[in-house]
């Protein structure tokens, strides 16, 4: 949720810069498109982290049970 808010804030900053004439429309468009890629990286990283957390939980249970893998 926080990552999404960050992306929204960044998009607003781009819009303001474009409206202030600091960027061409083409540049503005490309930067907004990059936000989608950034969002994608955030998604993959959070998926990997949830895998890691799941692994830690499982290892914790295995350790507690005294089973040797």
């Amino acid at each position, binding site marked *: 949720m926080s990552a999404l808010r960050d992306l929204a804030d960044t998009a607003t900053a*781009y819009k303001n*810069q474009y409206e202030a004439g*600091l*960027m*061409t429309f083409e*540049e503005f468009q*490309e*930067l907004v498109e*990059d936000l989608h*890629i*950034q969002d*994608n*990286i*955030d998604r*993959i*990283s959070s*998926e*990997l*982290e949830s895998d*890691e957390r799941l692994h830690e939980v499982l290892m914790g249970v295995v350790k507690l049970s005294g089973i040797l893998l």
Partner: protein
Amino acid sequence: MGQGTKESQSIKLYQYIDIKPLVFISMLILSGCGLFVANYDTTEYYLVNHIRTQAMIGNCSKENVDTIYKTSTELVNFTQYLPRNEPTHEMAQNLHIIVDELRKRESPGVTYCKNKLNIISTSAEEIQRVVGKKPK
């Protein structure tokens, strides 16, 4: 007669040397050495960190952008054929797309270029965070 005495002496010697503490100490030393080996992929981590740092401190010069592009290409290639590494490779590819867009642009505006370097740095930081936690 003499040989028999030697054998009985060596048997007696083994009786006095307790081998268990030696085995325990050896295991301790070996596991201790393991503590100093990173459990994440240091090459991946180094490459992502290099991209992030170059994007953070570097300017929009062609030389700097080319350096980032070269390291980004290395990262994509390095992550490609490692087993169970598809998500990292996908992230590396995504980052490379952004870097490539900047490199391809003929004369980028200052605002655009700064934003682009900021995106590269933020994305690389996110990848670095994940690579640092990911076991080898």
